[in-house]
């Protein structure tokens, strides 16, 4: 058997990340306490090179590599780019927080890079095996990141919960995959799709397997009723870990759903459609209603995540190319919004103080008007207020649902997002109309953080006014 070196070209971004992670791991050993910033610089350079390489190797017809284990198509190009850019923003925000708490060590960056590597592998998987391995690589790194603050009891508890429920979700997923393998005789998506098309709808084993796959996807997305872990982990984990865990992995989870349900089992859409409807309605309902009652902003954002997942499912369950494209648009936009929201929480934190309560945002406008404006943009976007991109994302998803004659579902979604607007706008009210606490100092940040946050916030506005830039990319991916 002959190995073709051309196989390595499409995974150049992954190879770059792996080399960067290994390099940081080794360089970190020789760095003195005050030189640890070099880890940060190396990581950012590595991710930037990976972004460039993703652009360089991307484009063109879909191609399969590594004997059917890897695929490079428009979906993988776009999602890889989005994951890397969001992660780059996330890594810029976390530095000051880590430094203040003496946690600016190489391991944080190494684990973060491995998590991103896992996501990239998931996005470009062409068979259940690499998809699952990528998922585990990402999850294992995230478990460790949640427990990163070793002296925090809450962090350890959150990591334990995440680990046990994550393992349960993975077990469900694997059981579903074993059923699909039993019914179709393959773990590669194209042969699975072919076998499903030949067998038709009669096979109960496939439907049984899909039920477990959807449960696994639900766990990984954090959709109701598999959402129990989300609020506790968001609250207990250190904020930088939540930032990494709450932003780009949503894009990877979207890829997980697309690869399995659409690439592999697309012709069984009527079967998984119903399951997703249940998950979507419950997620939007419970997420938005419970978020209102939260006083901890990290918990509030956790429930807001759950409600946004409902919207992503809306696009998926429509089952049309337009629906998939709108769900893709939504998940990328959501990842950018989440990065912005947790980035602001990191900026608000200082040595010995973590911004966790809603009251900590009071009077942000008096402390730093620019960051206040950015946070307001993020909140407006999450609530879906025009002209921000959150509105466009919601509109596209709803349009896709209406096009497949599910008007009632669109009405439910609109109803719950109106309820949800309340708690996002309450944050804006805290920022602009309340006085800051007496001991709240002015915000001090580095220039890099300010530039990154400005880009993050303004992108939400720019994409809202000119959505075509990203939307055409999403639509081309499924055309």
């Amino acid at each position, binding site marked *: *058997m002959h190995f073709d070196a051309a196989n390595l070209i499409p995974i150049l971004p992954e190879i770059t990340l792996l080399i960067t992670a290994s390099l940081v791991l080794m360089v970190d050993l020789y760095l003195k306490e005050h030189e640890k910033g070099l880890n940060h610089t190396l990581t950012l350079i590595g991710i930037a090179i990976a972004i460039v390489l993703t652009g360089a190797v991307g484009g063109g017809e879909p191609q399969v590599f590594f*004997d059917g284990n890897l695929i490079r198509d428009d979906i993988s190009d776009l999602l890889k780019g989005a994951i890397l850019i969001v992660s780059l923003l996330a890594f810029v925000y976390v530095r000051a927080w880590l430094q203040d708490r003496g946690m600016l060590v190489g391991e944080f960056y190494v684990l973060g890079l*491995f998590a991103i590597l896992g996501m990239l592998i998931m996005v470009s998987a062409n068979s259940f095996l690499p998809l699952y391995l990528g998922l585990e690589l990402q999850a294992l790194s995230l*478990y*460790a990141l949640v427990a990163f603050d070793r002296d925090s009891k809450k962090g350890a508890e959150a990591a334990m919960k995440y680990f046990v429920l994550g393992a349960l979700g993975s077990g469900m997923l694997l059981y579903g995959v074993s059923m699909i393998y039993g*019914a179709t005789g393959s773990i590669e998506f194209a042969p699975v799709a072919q076998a499903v098309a030949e067998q038709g709808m009669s096979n109960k084993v496939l439907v049984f397997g899909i039920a477990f796959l959807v449960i696994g996807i639900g766990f990984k997305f954090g959709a109701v009723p598999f959402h129990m872990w989300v609020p506790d982990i968001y609250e207990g984990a250190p904020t930088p870990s939540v930032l990494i865990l709450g932003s780009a992995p949503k894009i990877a989870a979207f890829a997980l759903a697309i690869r399995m349900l659409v690439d592999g089992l697309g012709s069984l859409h009527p079967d998984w459609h119903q399951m997703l409807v249940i998950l979507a309605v419950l997620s939007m309902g419970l997420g938005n209603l419970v978020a209102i009652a939260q006083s901890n902003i990290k918990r509030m954002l956790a429930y807001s995540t759950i409600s946004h997942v409902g919207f992503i499912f809306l696009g998926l369950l429509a089952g049309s190319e337009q629906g998939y494209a709108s769900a893709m648009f939504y998940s990328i936009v959501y990842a950018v919004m989440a990065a912005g929201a947790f980035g602001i929480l990191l900026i608000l934190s200082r040595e010995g103080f973590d911004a966790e309560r809603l009251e900590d945002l009071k009077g942000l406008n008096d402390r730093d008007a620019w960051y206040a404006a950015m946070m307001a943009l993020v909140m407006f976007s999450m609530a879906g207020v025009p002209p921000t991109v959150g509105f466009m994302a919601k509109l596209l998803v709803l349009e896709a649902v209406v096009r497949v004659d599910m008007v009632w579902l669109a009405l439910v979604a609109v109803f719950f997002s109106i309820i949800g607007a309340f708690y996002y706008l309450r944050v804006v009210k805290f920022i602009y109309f309340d006085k800051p606490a007496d001991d709240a100092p002015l915000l001090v940040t580095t220039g890099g953080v300010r530039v990154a946050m400005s880009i993050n916030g303004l992108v939400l506005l720019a994409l809202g006014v000119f959505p075509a830039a990203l939307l055409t990319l999403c639509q081309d991916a499924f055309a």
Partner: protein
Amino acid sequence: MGFEKFLFYVFALITLWAAGMVITRKNPVHSVLFLVLAFVSSAALWLLLEAEFLGIVLVLVYVGAVMVLFLFVIMMLDIDIATLRAGFIRYLPIGILITAVMAVEIFLIVGPSNFGLEAFPAPEPAAADASNAADLGRVLYTLYLYPVEIAAVILLVAIVAAIRLTLRRRPETKFVDPSRQVRVKKGPRRIRLVKMAAEVAVPAAVSSAQPGVEENS
């Protein structure tokens, strides 16, 4: 064929029984031992499937290494069984309900109707000189090269995560530095001869000086 079938049922029943005992025993050490039994009998099932290499690896790696380590950990930990069992009775009904529903569904689906011999005819027995390990190695590093590499990265992450979560600097711990021990060389620098003044405590004692010997490492 008859004897093989008999063996299958024997080992399958042992596996199920042991798995049930794992979750019902009060003492965690007993649970671990039953888990070992479950692994051994599943290894026997794999042998019946002609997956000899995997069966032996399961015994060597899981039973021989992983579970023994696990047993040590369980014995070292101070586990309060009472708190572990708290709520067991309270959650038992709903647990049994979910288990029953799942079991019925699985029996209905994974039964002879879907996975019978008509749908999946029995495979030809492998030739006597077929090598399990060679076949596995051949596909592992060709067809499945990419997944194997990812699995390697996962192991690296496990190492990094475990070290990060457990390694702490404790200045008060006493330890021997092996690298310094190894570096010790024969020669004048290893033993230091110290000249000391003769002690004259008792007039009748021997007055020769005792050389003080000091280890360097």
